């Protein structure tokens, strides 16, 4: 583990500049993301937050190397990203463990791809699983694990190859609220041990604040960076902090930024005029009251 930490500590700077991505549709090109700039310093935990469909996952997929930017640059340690690689570990929202591999074989996969011999990668996988409290499940197949355990294995698997950066795409979106909080705690603990750069995409404001050093807030489509917020909360962080006035102030600020964008994302300007002629029974309230 300390080897991994040492290797990661001075590396893993993500720099996205003048990023734009559009795709062709029958109605002409559609702009998904435009003029986005993002920097993640080595060892920093950064979140991107925004309404659904704002292109935050698009941005993350470009950093991973799955999508090519139409304009601008995506650099990791000053190298342009051209294809997916084990240097950039990724955790997906959908459970993405290989169902035909046991928990340990899943964690070993990246090491096997690197050509590490069997006994060494077995030891490495065991060590990591032990740290994540999953050693007892090393020989289980993924379908016997709970959702939270699957994502924990997913994180361990992404970290096993010693990547420079870790990319997470709403990894806890499918989990229940209690499990999500535990997972957030586990992720911050692992991040502090590994000193790895993290880019985390979410639509959950509490999650973004609790985890991050910095939060980028994105606008509705075409997505671009609307604001950048520093999270000066002390580390290590605990659940109790989520009730602190500092946390709540940050929450209020982000909330107002986001809700504006969410309304836009829901379809143009929603106001009382837009209601005229619709057959929605508002029981005497205006729509903005209801929202």
């Amino acid at each position, binding site marked *: 583990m300390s080897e991994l930490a040492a290797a990661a500590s001075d590396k893993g700077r993500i720099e996205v500049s003048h990023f734009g991505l559009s795709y062709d549709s029958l109605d002409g090109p559609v702009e998904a993301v435009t003029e986005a700039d993002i920097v993640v310093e080595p060892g920093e935990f950064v979140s991107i937050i925004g309404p659904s469909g704002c292109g935050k996952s698009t941005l993350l997929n470009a950093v991973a190397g799955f999508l090519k930017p139409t304009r601008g640059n995506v650099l990791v340690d000053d190298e342009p990203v051209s294809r997916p*690689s084990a240097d950039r570990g990724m955790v997906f929202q959908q459970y993405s463990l*290989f*169902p035909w591999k046991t928990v340990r074989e899943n964690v070993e996969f990246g090491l096997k791809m690197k050509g590490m011999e069997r006994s060494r990668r077995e030891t490495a996988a065991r060590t990591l699983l032990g740290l994540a409290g999953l050693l007892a499940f090393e020989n289980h197949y993924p*379908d016997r694990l709970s959702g939270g355990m699957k994502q924990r294995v997913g994180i361990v698997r992404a970290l096993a190859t010693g990547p420079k950066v870790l990319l997470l795409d709403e990894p806890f979106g499918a989990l229940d609220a209690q499990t999500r909080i535990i997972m957030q705690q586990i992720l911050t603990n692992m991040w502090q041990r590994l000193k790895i750069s993290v880019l985390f995409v979410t639509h959950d404001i509490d999650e973004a604040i609790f985890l991050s050093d910095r939060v980028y807030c994105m606008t509705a489509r075409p997505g671009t960076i609307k604001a950048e917020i520093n999270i000066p909360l002390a580390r290590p962080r605990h659940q109790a902090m989520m009730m602190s006035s500092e946390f709540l102030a940050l929450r209020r600020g982000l909330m107002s930024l986001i809700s504006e964008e969410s309304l836009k994302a829901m379809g143009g300007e929603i106001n009382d005029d837009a209601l005229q002629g619709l057959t929605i029974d508002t029981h005497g309230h205006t729509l903005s009251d209801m929202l």
Partner: protein
Amino acid sequence: MVAWLALHRAEMRSVLLGAISLALFILSWHFLTTYRVSFHVRFANVPTPAQVFESFVRATHNGTLLHHVVLSCRRIAMGFIIATVIAVPLGLVMGRFRFARDVVFPVSEVLRPIPAIAWVPMSIMLWPSNEESIVFITFIGSFFPILLNTLHGMANVDPVLVRASQCLGASEFSIFRDVYFPASLPSIFTGLTVGMGVAWVSLIAAEMISGQFGIGYFTWEAYSLVQYSDIALGMICIGILGLGSSALIRGIGRIVMPWKKST
């Protein structure tokens, strides 16, 4: 023991009900044939269970039945294994490379609706020996279900698994070997099970028409020689062989795919 029974109550009941159902079937067969029931359907010439058992004892004693069964099994094994060895890799390649799919698919779609039985005359012309033509018909029968199910499996590979493997540094080849192939295995095994069923249908038809040995030939010959009890014996053998071969495939499937709880 009591605890075990309590845990497996549902299974025990299934086994018991299955046994009762089979016993009832044989019992009604027995009554329908011993009393020579005739209401449009005529049971007058149908052998009784006891007669069939007699001819079973006789045929096993002189070894003819075993000889026919072994020959049929050998034909099935050859046709089916050749079909698997060709159809599975072809399906995998077609599923991965659009070019291969676009080239092979039209031909396969034209040939697929032709039942294996319709291949019998052509097959006799194509192959120098009777044995080869029967194996070929068995091959044709099982080939398309295996190919199509392999393709289906490839088309339904979860893209997130492919992306996950790319993020872990997998090469093109290892994505193919470590993701596409295992992800398609359940579907491939569905194809093998269906293919095995069709292989038996094709084999029996081929043996009845052009065979000199084999369980299909045995059944048809019994009819020609007015050995009515041998007809039923042949049919039962075919049923048991079909059941056994699909059980064999399921068994192999369980060994190859230990992550699947039940298949």
